[in-house]
C-alpha cells in the first residue's frame, strides 16, 4: 500500500500501479491519447503529464508508478503549462477539419483541446499532409488527422494477434500504414475505430451518415455468435446508424467482433419485407395484418397435425422459439426443429451447448484441447480469452479439426484430418488415456495421439476440452461429441461446447426440438420429425421462422425443393426473396435484431434480455406477437401473453426447476470416402441479417469463402487446377464453382461453404460428391 496525495487529497492506493490507473479509479481526470487500459503503455503522446513534487520535470501519469508519499498536482501551473504545450504540438500538423470529420463531436482530440489547449495557434507554417489509403471495406482512413498515438498498431499486435497496421517512416514522415497494398483483415478490425482518439480511422459503412450529436443510444445483445457480446446502437430518427461495443467485463470487455458491429446494415437491405402478403390464385398481394393472419390460420386449420412442421433459425429469441414450439405442440405436432446445419441426428437427447465456465476462466487455462472449433473467426472474443491464456499463462493448445484455420497464437499440436479420421484420432487419444476400456480394443494409438494424451494428463493443471461449432456439420457428430466428452472426463477437464448461433443454447432450452420440449424434458408420445426429415419429405404445411431454406439449411437445394412441394407454407421472416415467393403462401414480416425484445442464452449460460431499440421497418411486428395471434386464431390454449417478459418468466421458471436427463451416447468408427464433402456456413453468411451486410461481404474473409476448396494433392489427383470452373454434383443438387487450392484441407476433402447464392444449388449432402471439370 502507498499513501499518496493528489491535488491536496490523500489516497491509500496499491503500490506499483500506474498513476493513471489510480486517478481513473477515483474519477480524477487526466487527459490522454496513447494510453488505453486494455493496451500496453507507450507513453508517447505526453498528454498525461502531471506535476509530481520533487520530480525535475512533469511526469507522464500513464507510465509513472505510484510510490509512498508521492504528491501529485494535476492542475498546478507547471502541469497546465505542460498540457498546453503538448496540446499545441499535437495540433501543429492536425488539419482541424472537424466540420467534415465523422469523429467531430465524439473526438478525444477535440475534447482535450477544448479542455486543456490554448485557444490560439502560433503555427503559421505549412502543415504536413498524408495520402490516404484504402485499407478495406470496414475502416475509412484520414491519416492526415493521425496524432501517432499507436493505439491501432498496439491493438493489432496485442489484441487482434496479427500485426496489420504499422508506423512506417520516421519523424515528420511517420505515418500509420499497412504493408504495400494490404488491407486490414482481422475479424476484430473494427475496434481500431473506437480506439482511434481522432478521426483518422472511422467506420466506412456509416461514413458521413450522421453526426454524433444527432444520435441517441440503446443497449443490445450481439446477434451472431454464441458468445453474446454487449453492444450499443447509435440511432437517429428510428434508424440504427451504427453499432459499437458496450463494456462488459465478464464477456466482451471493450471489444466487438466485426460481424456483430457491421451486420446492422442488413436491417436496411433492399429486400426487407415491410407488409404482410398472401398468395391468392397464384398472385401475391399485400394485405393488412388481420387478413394475413386469418389466411394463415385458415390454411393451417385444414392440415392434420402430423402433417405440420415448424422450422426456426437459432438466431430467433427464446420467446419466439418457445412460442413456436408451443403453437405446434398445441396443434398436436412435435415436428419442430432449429438444427438446420446438422446432419447427424442419432443422439437421443440434445443438450444446450455451454462452456461450463466463464470466458475469464478460459484465459487461466494451462492445456486446451480444441476439437472442431474455429474460435478465431466464429467466436472471436472467446478466442481472445484463449489467446490470453497462451500469451500470459503459456497455455498449450492442441487443435484437431477438419480444416486448418489460421490461429493467432502458437499451437503445440495441430492436426487436420478428414472427418472419418477424426473419430479414429479421438478414439486413439481416449485409448491412450485409458487403455483398459473394452470399446477401444481394435483402436491403434499413434505416437502423436500418445503425445497429445500425455499433454492432457497433467496434475494440478487447468485442463479444458472444447468442442466447437464445426462438429455440427459432420455426419460423425454423435461420435465426436461422445469421444470428446470422454477425453474430458478421463483428464478431469472442464468440458465446453461453444454452439454456433446467438441463441443455440436458448433454442434447446426453449424446446424447439422434435424429441424434447422446454428445459430438455422428453415429450410424451411420439417423437416428431427433425429438420432433416422435415426438409427431405414434404409435409402438407410448414411454419417457418426467420429461415431461408436454400441458404440456412445444410440441405440447400433439397430443402428448397421440399418446401416448394408443400401445399401450404407460412413464412415469418424479415425479408422477402424470390425463393420465398416461390414456396410460401403467406409472408408475415417480423421485427429483426434491434427492433424486437427478447432473450438470448449465450454459451456462458447468461440469459441476456434485450428490448427493442428502434421500431420495426414498415408494419413488421415482433415474431412473438405474430405467433401469439396465430395461436389465438387457431384456438390453442394458454397464449394470452401481453408482454414478452411473461413468456420469458414461464420459460425460465421451468428451466430452473427441471433437470435434464441425458442418455448415454455411443461412438462408431466411420468408413473413409473417396472424396469427402465438407461444408459450413461462410463467415459472413450464417444468417439472414449478416448475409445482407454489404460491407462485410466485401472483406477478405468473406471473399475467401467462395469457390470449391481442395488441397493441391487432391486437385492433382482429380486433374483439376486452380481457378478452373468445376462441377459439383450430389443427390439432387449441383453447382459450378471455381476451384480454389487450399492448403488448410486434408487430402481427399472438398469444402464448399453454405449461405452463399453460388452454392445454394447444392444439396450439401455430406455423403457423396462428384467433382469434375465443368
Amino acid at each position, binding site marked *: 500500500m502507498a499513501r499518496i496525495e493528489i491535488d491536496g487529497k490523500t489516497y491509500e492506493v496499491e503500490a506499483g500501479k500506474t498513476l493513471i490507473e489510480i486517478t481513473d479509479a477515483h474519477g480524477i481526470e487526466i487527459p490522454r491519447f496513447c494510453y488505453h487500459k486494455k493496451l500496453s503503455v507507450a507513453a508517447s503522446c505526453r498528454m498525461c503529464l502531471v506535476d509530481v513534487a520533487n520530480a525535475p520535470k512533469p511526469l507522464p501519469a500513464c507510465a509513472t508508478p505510484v510510490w509512498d508519499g508521492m504528491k501529485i498536482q494535476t492542475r498546478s501551473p507547471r502541469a497546465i503549462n505542460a498540457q498546453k504545450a503538448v496540446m499545441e504540438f499535437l495540433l501543429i500538423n492536425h488539419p482541424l477539419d472537424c466540420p467534415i470529420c465523422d469523429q467531430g463531436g465524439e473526438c478525444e482530440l477535440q475534447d482535450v483541446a477544448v479542455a486543456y489547449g490554448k485557444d490560439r495557434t502560433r503555427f503559421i507554417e505549412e502543415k504536413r499532409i498524408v495520402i490516404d489509403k484504402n485499407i478495406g471495406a470496414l475502416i475509412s482512413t484520414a491519416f492526415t488527422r493521425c496524432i501517432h498515438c499507436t493505439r491501432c498498431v498496439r491493438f493489432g499486435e496485442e489484441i487482434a494477434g496479427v500485426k496489420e497496421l*504499422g*508506423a512506417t517512416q*520516421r519523424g515528420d514522415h511517420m505515418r500509420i500504414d499497412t504493408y504495400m497494398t*494490404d488491407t486490414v483483415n482481422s475479424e476484430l478490425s473494427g475496434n481500431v475505430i473506437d480506439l482511434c482518439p481522432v478521426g483518422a480511422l472511422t467506420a466506412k459503412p456509416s461514413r458521413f451518415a450522421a453526426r454524433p450529436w444527432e444520435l441517441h443510444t440503446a443497449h443490445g445483445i450481439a446477434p451472431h455468435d454464441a458468445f453474446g457480446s454487449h453492444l450499443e446502437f447509435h440511432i437517429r430518427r428510428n434508424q440504427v446508424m451504427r453499432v459499437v461495443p458496450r463494456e462488459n467485463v465478464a464477456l466482451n470487455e471493450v471489444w466487438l467482433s466485426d460481424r456483430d458491429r457491421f451486420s446492422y446494415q442488413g436491417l436496411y437491405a433492399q429486400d426487407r419485407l415491410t407488409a404482410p402478403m398472401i398468395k391468392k390464385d397464384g398472385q401475391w398481394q399485400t394485405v393488412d395484418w388481420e387478413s394475413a393472419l386469418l389466411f394463415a390460420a385458415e390454411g393451417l386449420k385444414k392440415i392434420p397435425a402430423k402433417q405440420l412442421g415448424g422450422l426456426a433459425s437459432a438466431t430467433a429469441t427464446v420467446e419466439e422459439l418457445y412460442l413456436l414450439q408451443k403453437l405446434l405442440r398445441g396443434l398436436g405436432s412435435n415436428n419442430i426443429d432449429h438444427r438446420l446445419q446438422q446432419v447427424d441426428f442419432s443422439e437421443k437427447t440434445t443438450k444446450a451447448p455451454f462452456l461450463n465456465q466463464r470466458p475469464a476462466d478460459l484465459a487461466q487455462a494451462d492445456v486446451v484441447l480444441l476439437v472442431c472449433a474455429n474460435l478465431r473467426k466464429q467466436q472471436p472474443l472467446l478466442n481472445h480469452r484463449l489467446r490470453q491464456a497462451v500469451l500470459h499463462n503459456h497455455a498449450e493448445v492442441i487443435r484437431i479439426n477438419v480444416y486448418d484455420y489460421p490461429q493467432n497464437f502458437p499451437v503445440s499440436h495441430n492436426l487436420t484430418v478428414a472427418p472419418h479420421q477424426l473419430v479414429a484420432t479421438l478414439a486413439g487419444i481416449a485409448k491412450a488415456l485409458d487403455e483398459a476400456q473394452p470399446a477401444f480394443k481394435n483402436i491403434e494409438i499413434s505416437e502423436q495421439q500418445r503425445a497429445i494424451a500425455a499433454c492432457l494428463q497433467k496434475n494440478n493443471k487447468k485442463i479444458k476440452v472444447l468442442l466447437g461449432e464445426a462438429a455440427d456439420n459432420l455426419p460423425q457428430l454423435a461420435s465426436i461429441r461422445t469421444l470428446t466428452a470422454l477425453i474430458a472426463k478421463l483428464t478431469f477437464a472442464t468440458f465446453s461446447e461453444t454452439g454456433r448461433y446467438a441463441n443455440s443454447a436458448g433454442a434447446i432450452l426453449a424446446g424447439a426440438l422434435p424429441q424434447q420440449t422446454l428445459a430438455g424434458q422428453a415429450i410424451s408420445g411420439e417423437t416428431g420429425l427433425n429438420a432433416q426429415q422435415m426438409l427431405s419429405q414434404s409435409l402438407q404445411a410448414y411454419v417457418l421462422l426467420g429461415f431461408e431454406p436454400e441458404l440456412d439449411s445444410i440441405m440447400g437445394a433439397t430443402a428448397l425443393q421440399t418446401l416448394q412441394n408443400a401445399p401450404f407454407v407460412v413464412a415469418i421472416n424479415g425479408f422477402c426473396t424470390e425463393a420465398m415467393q416461390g414456396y410460401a403462401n403467406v409472408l408475415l414480416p417480423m421485427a429483426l435484431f434491434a427492433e424486437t425484445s427478447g432473450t438470448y442464452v449465450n454459451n456462458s449460460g447468461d440469459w441476456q434480455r434485450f428490448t427493442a431499440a428502434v421500431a420495426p421497418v414498415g408494419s413488421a411486428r415482433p415474431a412473438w406477437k405474430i405467433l401469439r395471434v396465430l395461436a389465438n386464431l387457431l384456438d390453442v390454449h394458454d397464449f394470452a401473453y401481453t408482454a414478452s417478459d411473461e413468456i420469458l418468466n414461464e420459460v425460465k421458471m421451468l428451466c430452473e426447476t427441471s433437470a435434464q436427463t441425458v442418455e448415454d451416447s455411443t461412438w462408431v468408427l466411420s468408413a473413409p470416402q473417396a472424396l469427402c464433402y465438407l461444408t459450413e456456413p461462410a463467415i459472413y453468411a450464417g444468417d439472414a441479417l449478416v448475409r445482407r451486410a454489404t460491407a462485410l461481404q466485401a472483406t*477478405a474473409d468473406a471473399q475467401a469463402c467462395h469457390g470449391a476448396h481442395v488441397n493441391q494433392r487432391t486437385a492433382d489427383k482429380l486433374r483439376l487446377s486452380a481457378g478452373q470452373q468445376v462441377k459439383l454434383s450430389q443427390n439432387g443438387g449441383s453447382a459450378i464453382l471455381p476451384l480454389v487450392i487450399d492448403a488448410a484441407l486434408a487430402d481427399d476433402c472438398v469444402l464448399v461453404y453454405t449461405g452463399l447464392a453460388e452454392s445454394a444449388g447444392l444439396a450439401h449432402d455430406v455423403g457423396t460428391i462428384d467433382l469434375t471439370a465443368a
Partner: protein
Amino acid sequence: MTHKTSSLISDESKADIDRWLQKYPADKKQSAVMAALRIVQDQNGGWLTPALIEAVAAYLDMEPIAVYEVASFYSMYEHKPVGKHHIKVCTNISCLLRGSDAVMAHLEKQLGIKKGQVTEDGLFSIKEVECLGACVNAPMMQIGRDYHEDLSPEKIDEILARLK
C-alpha cells in the same frame, strides 16, 4: 494477405543471417531484422525490393509490415536502385556550417545528376543524409563503408577519379 516465401534470399545470405540469429533467443528471431535487411540489401546491389522485405519477414517469422517499419525508419535501407558507389552527403548542422552545400553542388556538377539520382552508367548515386557523427571533420560524405572528411572540391575530384 500471405507473403510466405524466403526463397529470394541466397544460401550465402541465409548463412549470414543465421549467424546473427544465434546471438538471440530462439523465440526472438525478429531481433535479427536489421542485420537481415542489410544482408539482403547487399545481396541485391544495395537496395531493397518489396519481395526481399517479404522474404525477410518470412525468414524471421514476422509480419511484412513489421519489417517494413524498420526498413522505412532507417535511412541506411534503400528502396530504389542505387549506384555501385552510393555517396551519402551529410548536410546536418556541423557540415552545413562547414560548407556541405558546396560539397553537394560540386558532386552534382561533376556527376551530372541531382541528389536522389543514379548516373547513367550506374556507377554513382547521391543521397542527402543527417549527421553521421563525424562533425569534427566536417564537411563529410560516406561512400560504401568509408568516411571521407574535410572535403574540398579538389579532394572530391580525387576521390571520384579513384572510383571511376
